[in-house]
């Protein structure tokens, strides 16, 4: 798991890079993302990761959900 800000910055960074890879005919002005996450409240703040699935032990973390609304800057 990693801090919430790392996941958000990484996610937006990769999306931004992929959208300008070719000749863009359309402009993206807004972006809504909704994804399941594994979350842990810890010090300091929220630690998250993409769902890792059921581990070999059979213990599964309950999935939370994160929604992001972004606008182009």
């Amino acid at each position, binding site marked *: 798991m990693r801090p919430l800000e790392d996941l*958000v910055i990484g996610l937006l960074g990769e999306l931004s890079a992929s959208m300008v890879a070719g000749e863009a005919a359309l402009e993206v002005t807004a972006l809504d993302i909704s994804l399941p996450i594994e979350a842990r409240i810890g010090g300091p*703040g929220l630690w998250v990761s993409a769902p890792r699935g059921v581990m070999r032990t*059979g213990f599964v973390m*309950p999935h*939370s959900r*994160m929604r992001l609304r972004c606008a*182009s800057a």
Partner: protein
Amino acid sequence: MAEASRGSGRGFLVEDFVQSITAQLDRVQDALALKARTGRPLTFALKDLSVDLKVFWDSDGSGRALLRHAGPNEEGASTLQIAFTTITRAMVEENTVAMAQDADPRRLEELPGMPSLQDEDRQRLDLLGIRTVGQLKQLSQEASPKAVETYTGIPVLRLQAALQQAAQPAITGNEVVSRGGRPYLRIFGVNLTRAGKPEVRLSGEPVEVVDSGPSELLVRPLSHHREGQIEVMAGEHRATGFYDVPAELVAPAELRRPTPLVEPLAAGGVP
């Protein structure tokens, strides 16, 4: 982030959690703004973020709410929906207490003398958002002690005793400032002019009060004053503190000039 052990997991105070996650989102905005400044052709600004967390609620001995994330295979968790949105500085200032305007920013437990308010009294006031002596005074001006007792459950006598303590002068700090090459002492406090212009003594000697206000005094120390006790006499009440004037501020300018370790070169340079 403060945490409390309870049962099989660790609970975190809700207010600490919200503050921590707010700081995390501030870091996101800072990083995205940095990317935009580096000239990337397309980047995004975060407008809203919401998370649904599976949590268990608990409370500590003081009645404060604690939050714990559900562990593996734990059933019956609540879903906490928490949403953050971007707001401007003006909106923040509009919706928060103006700390700079608090006439008496001391915490309630800093009231001098015998503690008139008990711990549970302070916790009740804290739940109402009253954390400083200034806020308590304001509450007493806007409502009678009986009305405050009805709403908070704090007995009138304890409340009146606290307000009497709050009205006494107190020194909260001081600093040495330089004016025209000589040191002055600025004294910070509360109720310093409750009986008009106060008399101030440094190390037991009266000194000139150059400027005075309820929360700030400016006095002129005598040339031999270096450190000692501050006394502010406001009517029949007396407040005390301690001052320390740094030597470099009291020494004449000639003495402050550093002595050169080597003689300066004579005109004409090295022979």
